[in-house]
């Protein structure tokens, strides 16, 4: 478990400015899929209730049907939970010093990466398509000089606003570095002598 006031490798005077997850639309998709996968078999069972009753009273078909249905409903429940965990653990934390990206890809793959604000060259916000325009969500790409050129914020709420905040933080970080007697050589921040 981690706390926003105790980030991994937290630096002195580092403060969390933004804590981001994917837009709530991602949750809506999980909920709709869950209701559909649970609701359709229940509705079919309700419609053919007489047949289902005959099957359930059968000494061989009855137990097999209950086992198959139990496995099906438990699987849907588990998949919904795994998808939700994937959503819940995908986070982006923007501080006044760096950007931290934690991505959960499935159950056995987790990536945590961080980017110093001094390495940021350019920030781009993207809202593409009907749904993203209506619900005001989209992507933010943070361009760096490194080989892995872009840091992606995927399907976040109000990407334009996030872009503005990151741009402002990058400027402030550069000013602070210079005022502390440091210099910006290339994309590497050097503080002190």
């Amino acid at each position, binding site marked *: *478990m981690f706390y926003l006031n105790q980030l991994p490798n937290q630096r002195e005077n580092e403060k969390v400015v933004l804590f981001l997850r994917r837009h709530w639309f991602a949750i809506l998709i999980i909920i709709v899929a869950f209701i559909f996968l649970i609701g359709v078999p229940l509705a079919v069972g309700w419609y053919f209730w007489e047949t289902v009753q*005959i099957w359930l009273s*059968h000494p*061989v078909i009855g137990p097999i049907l209950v086992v198959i249905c*139990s496995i099906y409903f438990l699987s849907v*429940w*588990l998949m919904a939970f*795994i998808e939700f965990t994937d959503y819940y*653990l995908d986070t982006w934390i923007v501080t006044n010093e760096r950007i931290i990206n934690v991505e*959960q890809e499935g159950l056995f793959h987790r990536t945590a990466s961080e980017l110093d604000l001094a390495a940021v060259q350019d920030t781009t916000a993207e809202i593409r398509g009907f749904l993203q325009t209506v619900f005001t969500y989209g992507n933010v790409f943070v361009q760096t000089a490194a080989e892995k050129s872009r840091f992606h914020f995927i399907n976040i709420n109000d990407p334009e606003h996030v872009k503005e905040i990151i741009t402002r933080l990058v400027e402030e970080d550069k000013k602070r570095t210079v005022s502390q007697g440091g210099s910006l050589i290339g994309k590497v921040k050097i503080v002190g002598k």
Partner: protein
Amino acid sequence: MFDIPNFSVPVLIFLMLYGAYLLLFLFYGLFNIYHLIRYGLYGFGLYLIITVFAGGTILLVSGSIFILMGFDWSQPIFLNNVIETYSKDLFKSW
């Protein structure tokens, strides 16, 4: 012509299959909860998610076990002409 003996297996084999599935479910469920506790952000939401999942799982599993307890698991499934034997019962009301 050959006279094929009438093979049969007990319905219990499906209960064992369900038991094996429950073990797999338990593994994935607990692993997921571990992930949430280990990497999730501290807060009320985290406890709520885990409680909802655990509560839902207990309801589903106990409900299915309650229904499954009512069956006679020693009933044999005759493997010879299995479709012909049970298709009449499957579509009795149609």
